[in-house]
């Protein structure tokens, strides 16, 4: 059952990632927002795989805390991805709602941070042998 849920969130993350790439040249804000949602789905996949039973929450900050705690419980030392994740989350509202201008350059940085987070998440999922991570 866990493997099915992990697959679900990974598929969703991949979908967002492809959308991010598809839109990046023409629709910077949409692309950036999809990147952030991709990271959220990867975080959900990792948390479910590490034993979390509830990931549907708008409080993504607590998701980062929960992920960090679960990784620490497994004595997983590379926590850089959690900080990438926090950084991405901190930009979500600004990209989506706030009136102050987010420059195109900021959106490009979000895309780069998303890619780095995805690399970290993929390697983390594999190293921790999360059920359903590899196909």
């Amino acid at each position: 059952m866990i493997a099915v849920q992990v697959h679900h969130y990974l598929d969703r993350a991949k979908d967002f990632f492809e959308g991010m790439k598809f839109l990046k040249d023409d629709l910077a804000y949409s692309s950036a927002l999809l990147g952030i949602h991709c990271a959220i789905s990867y975080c959900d996949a990792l948390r479910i795989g590490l034993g979390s039973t509830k990931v549907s929450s708008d409080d993504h900050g607590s998701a980062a805390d929960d992920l960090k705690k679960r990784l620490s419980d497994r004595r997983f030392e590379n926590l850089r991805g959690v900080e990438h994740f926090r950084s991405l989350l901190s930009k979500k509202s600004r990209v989506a709602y706030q009136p102050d201008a987010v420059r195109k350059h900021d959106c490009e940085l979000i895309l780069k941070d998303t890619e780095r987070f995805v690399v970290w998440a993929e390697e983390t999922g594999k190293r921790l042998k999360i059920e359903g991570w590899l196909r």
Partner: protein
Amino acid sequence: MIETQVQQELGRAKNAIQEYLIRKLVVPKVFLDADWNGTQVDVLAIDRAGVGDVHAVRMVPPQGRFIEDGAVVLIARQVLEAVKELKSLPSQYRHVAVLSGDPDNHRFCPSDPILQESFAEDGVGRVGVLYVDLTLEPPVEVKLKPERFRSSKEIVELADRYVAEHTANWEVRE
């Protein structure tokens, strides 16, 4: 074309295929001219930062116009041979890339023997065919959509070893 020009065209085509795979996959690690389990692979991409499916691309070099002077027959035969060889390659996705030899000629299409030969014997998997024309944007066109071959412990172990022992030509670093 002189030898240097041919090599340059092949190199540019490898770059174009790499770009295509980067767009298609999720942060893949891409290797050029890979020795994959003893077989030369022109472009090798391992999806999901090196932990996912393996995509292997074998290129068929330009042969001039496809239709004239019997070249269409030559290309078709070479593509067919490449498809047959790839069927035993350990990777989840396998592609043959046909390089255009003439900017005015976009007429290559996989023939019936290629279409039939492209399937795995048990039906799980199909070798894809890409067409590369460096004068077009984007330069890579899918002529035959690949289908995933069975995965195996052998493929996973090969990929793990390859990623550990080789530096990727393109990757996103954490």
